[in-house]
């Protein structure tokens, strides 16, 4: 299936997980980066803003992932009803 609109439901989970991962990586990285930046800037190169930032990033990624997955599951359920 080349067309991106119709993704199979069984594949969506996998895709979601993939996205989640990539997203978390980005988030964490970004967070770290931001943290780093902050640490650099604001928090005199302490280590804790990087971790904070990473943590923030992870948390955001986690939340996003969860939300995404749940959305998929509940959408699939409702979809079933519609079909």
């Amino acid at each position, binding site marked *: 299936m080349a067309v991106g609109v119709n993704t199979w*439901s*069984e594949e969506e989970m996998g895709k979601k997980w993939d996205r989640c991962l990539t997203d978390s990586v980005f988030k964490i990285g970004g967070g770290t980066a931001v943290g780093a930046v902050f640490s650099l800037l604001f928090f005199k190169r302490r280590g804790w803003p990087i971790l904070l930032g990473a943590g923030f990033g992870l948390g955001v990624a*986690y939340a996003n992932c969860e939300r995404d*997955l749940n959305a998929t*599951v509940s959408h*699939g359920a409702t979809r*079933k009803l519609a079909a």
Partner: protein
Amino acid sequence: MLRLTLKFPYHGLPRFQKHGSSRLLSLSSSHSQKTNLDSASKRDRGGSSGSGGGSGIFYTIGVLSVATGATLVYAKYDPEFRRWLNNQVPWSEPVLEFVFQEKEDWNTVLQNILDSVSQRTHKLISGFSSKQEVKETCEEEKGKKEFILTGEREKPAAKDPAQLPETHPLNLVDLEKKIRESATIAVNSYREAACAVRETGLDILTLVEQSVQQTDEKGLQNIKAKYERKEVLVKQAENKAQTAIDNVTRLKEIVETKPLDAPENMKASALRNVERVMEEISAAKDDLEREKKNASMAEKYWKKVEAARKHYIDELLILFPDVRLSDKDWRINKQDLDLFIYYCFQNVLYYQKELAKIETLQAEKLNAALRGSGEKVDKELLDATVTDALERQQRELELQFQKRILEIQQAVDKEMRIQLKRQAEAHSDHVCDALAMREKELERKFLRQEEEKLSAEQDKFKHQLAGMIGRLQGLESALKARAHIDKGAHQAQVLWSACQALHCALKHSQPGMPWQEQLRPLQNEITAVQKAALEDDELVNAVLGGIPAEAKTRGVFSETALRERFLQVESAARKVALVPSEGASLPVYFLSYLQSALLIKAVNPIPQSELLNEPTSFDKLDTYDVLQRARYWMERGNIEQTLRYMNLLSGASRSVAQDWMTEARIFLETKQAATVLMTHAAAAGLLYV
């Protein structure tokens, strides 16, 4: 003869009422040889006839009559006595015969007498009696002559066997015989002559009377011949008579002069015979003379007529030299014809005048003679006048009759002609009408026949046509039906093939391609099926309408594709088994993933009861059980069961399997449709098997 008529006037029959006695008495008075009884009775009668008469007359008469009656009867009874009586009383034989009607009937005798009397009177008055009477008298007399002679002959014959005389008697007998023969001959010839003379006279008369209208040459010749014959006969008769007389005289000499041995009575009888013969001959001669006299008158009449005719012919010859009366067709020109007619007319007038004169003169003369002669001879003259008058009247009546006849003939002819004409007209009209009617009738009849025949032919033709049309229609319908059937069969085949295509498209995947790319829109197949099916095939239409739209447009995953996909779905569903439908936190996800990794594929077999479709509760099945069962059925290719089990999923597994389930549903629907169509096609095809 005249004396007889005077003595016995003809008053009818009463003369013969007292037949026996009075006649005999009269007869006996003429004969002297009578018995004593008779003479006595005569005397008695003579004596007693003058007186008033008492019973004596009656007694004598009675006795006489009885005696005569007895004699007669005994004579009839006893022939010997009869003979003796005949010898004694000469006239007894005829009397006997008359009385007992031996020879002739009394009626015939009466008739004869009457006839003879009337004939004689007639002869006296009219010169010429009828031919018939002439003939009768001729033959009659002949017959009589025979009779008398035979009578005479009998007696000498009777005597011959009794005695055989010598030569003299024999000669006598021979002589007698000869005499008799010659006498008969002579008398016969006399009679013949007389007859001939009479006949000629009559012929002449008839000829004259007839030939007023026509001249008959043959008749004349006839008459001439008869006349000659008559002459001959007369001569003959005279000769015969002469010989007879000679014989008679000779016999007489012999008998009287020569001596005889024969008895006296023979001589006497011979003499008597001779006398009788002589008498007969003389009588015949007298007869002949009489006839001659009559004939002479006829001859005179005939001669006069001949003379007149000759005179007439001469005159005609003078007037018309080249004409003969005897020619059948005269060729005279018109003038001569007129002259001839005028001459004939003149003659006719002259003769009429003469006739009238003669008639009147005759009448006058007769009357004068009558008056002169007085009452004495009135009878004869009266009769003559009467006959004369009668003849005159007859002539007048004839003339009148002729005239009347002509008139009537004319009238009748005219009437007949008119009637015939009318009849002819009526007949022609009738015939015309009948013809016209007949024509019409015939025409009608023929027209009708023609129509009938025509209609019959038409009917036949129509019949044939109908037959043919029927056959044609039959053929057509048969062909149509066949075509229909063929079309149906073909169509069924096409339908089946289309359905088969659909089925196959569903069943098999395109080889060499992964399941993701095996979606093929089924539009073609479906349209093919639609085309193959009839327009009004409801089943096909419904079914095809029931096929989901995705199948038509997007296509349907084949069974193998579904199967492959199921594997992935199963694994995905296993991974999120613990996750409920609303979603859960992430750690749950991790947990479910861990569970799926750690759980070994359950070895718990599906209980037999569930497999046998016994009522089971499906509530207590968790995801893994469900998935197991789904897998079980998937392995056996029963996607329907798989779907059923998959439907039992709940939560995140359900949502993961959702697509697959939808796809499986679509597939199943399509497959169902395809199966139905297939069966339908197969059933339709069965019709044409």
